[in-house]
């Protein structure tokens, strides 16, 4: 089976989510990559070095500069004439593009897979991760998105893919990029951080979030996350949100501070290796999943912890 993998990139480097998608795709057969964008030579070179990669299709055109689904989907569909599966990481771009491709190919997408059981059978989470479904597809061509935390990352060296230019399908005129506000964040990216310190509503303000959570995270070299309540209250930007509708993370250590542990939040972090919870409510549901729990006032506990670590 020939599989085409969507390369998630920022114009400069290949994002980690792609590497997990490559691992998932390699379980299906021959792995080809698609690098779409504008001025993406460097990305294509890096992509060709990913272990296990065959061909790297490069579509370099202004129409692909912002990965707008309306322009990218026809490009993928054209390449699918020669591929059996399209695999994208479950990033916002992957989630935006893949279903449009699936509809154009008249196939049902399999979203956010956790494992490849066989060529046509996959597992995926449903109901905010409270159940795991095993599904089999009857479609000849497959469109799949891959949960990044469920697969090991393919090595970024050792591959020798051949780079091949793909003709642009042009601009459909159905969408236009206006601008982007990408949050500046010097800390490790959430979805690939080894340690995450996450804050919730109990922090009471953005100032407290910055004053308490961030020093602790910096001391640990950790990424910073948040519950939906903290994001909705405006303490931190939305891209910090961990949960069913935010980012799905599985770090080695997840430290939840002032987070009660609603179903929707747990959906985003309960596959973390070790969960540490700090909460003043000893009945908070977070303690049911925490490996280590400390019942206490975070305003006292967190500064003390930061100091003593």
């Amino acid at each position, binding site marked *: 089976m020939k599989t085409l993998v969507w390369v998630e990139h920022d114009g400069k480097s290949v994002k980690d989510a792609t590497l997990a998608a490559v691992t998932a795709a390699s379980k299906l057969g021959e792995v080809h990559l698609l690098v779409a964008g504008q001025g993406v030579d460097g990305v294509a070179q890096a992509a060709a070095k990913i272990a296990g990669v065959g061909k790297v299709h490069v579509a370099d055109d202004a129409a692909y500069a912002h990965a707008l689904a309306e322009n990218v989907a026809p490009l993928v569909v054209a390449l699918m004439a020669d591929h059996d599966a399209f695999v994208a990481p479950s990033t916002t771009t992957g989630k935006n593009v893949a279903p*449009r491709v699936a509809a154009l190919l008249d196939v049902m997408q399999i979203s956010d897979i956790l494992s490849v059981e066989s060529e046509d059978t996959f597992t995926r989470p449903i109901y905010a991760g409270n*159940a795991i479904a095993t599904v089999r597809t009857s479609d000849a061509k497959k469109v799949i998105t891959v949960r990044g935390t469920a697969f090991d990352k393919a090595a970024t060296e050792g591959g020798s893919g051949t780079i091949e230019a793909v003709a642009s399908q042009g601009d459909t005129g159905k969408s236009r990029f206006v601008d982007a506000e990408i949050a500046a964040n010097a800390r490790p990216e959430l979805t690939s951080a080894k340690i995450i310190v996450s804050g919730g509503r109990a922090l009471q303000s953005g100032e407290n979030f910055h004053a308490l959570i961030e020093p602790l995270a910096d001391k640990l070299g950790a990424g910073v996350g948040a519950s939906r309540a903290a994001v909705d209250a405006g303490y931190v930007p*939305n891209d910090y949100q961990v949960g069913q509708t935010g980012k799905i993370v599985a770090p080695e250590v997840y430290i939840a501070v002032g987070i009660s542990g609603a179903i929707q939040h747990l959906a985003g972090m309960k596959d973390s290796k070790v969960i540490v919870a700090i909460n003043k409510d000893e009945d908070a549901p977070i303690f049911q999943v925490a490996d280590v729990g400390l019942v206490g006032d975070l305003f006292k506990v967190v500064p003390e912890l930061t100091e003593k670590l």
Partner: protein
Amino acid sequence: MKVLVPVKRVLDYNVKPRVKADGTGVDLANVKMSMNPFDEIAVEEAIRLKDKGVTEIVVVSIGEPKAQETIRTALAMGADRGILVTSDTKVEPLGVAKILAKIVEEEQPSLVILGKQAIDDDNNQTGQMLAGLLGWGQGTFASKVELTADGVTVTREVDGGLETDAFPLPAIVTTDLRLNEPRYASLPNIMKAKSKPLAQKTAADYGVDVTPRLTTLKVVEPGKRQAGVKVADVDELVMKLHAMGIAK
């Protein structure tokens, strides 16, 4: 200008799902069902656009006859009329998108606003699929929607921040959590909603083949986490963290 809002009846988001012992699915007998939270946001957004050029809001639900309650909820919030499409089999996002495409052909809306995902299947596909089938632009994961002279501008929640894109009408928008805070339906409006028009259709009426492409072989509970320990104070927590090899 007409807006179409598809809504889905799902297990209430506060209910902890129970996996059936025989592994065939999640037990939905005698549990509270509600409108998918993202769809409430979609209905709310359509209503808010009423001051800005939207003249009619049509709500569609596809599924079992009880989905009628979900449509009534949307009508009580402020939508104008409903279309219920019943189906004997479970309809997948691809089938839903195909039925919606037929309804769009009939109704000719300028905008279709959907939730970004349903909290039962967690697929996050229907809006994008519908946009693909119709060849329309898709403003997914919207946290802000603005109608402009020649289209719609959508601020989208993407990994790393926000992205703003512009789309000519007609177009698709899918809602993210922060787009708005849905209103509650008042009792008088709930009563009024009972007399708003609601058309009854079946999937067959639209001539769409909704045979599922995916077969669910089994549904199981995720692995349970081992019960943890509670520590008495920060010193003990620091010891634990050090023992795990963190921040030595």
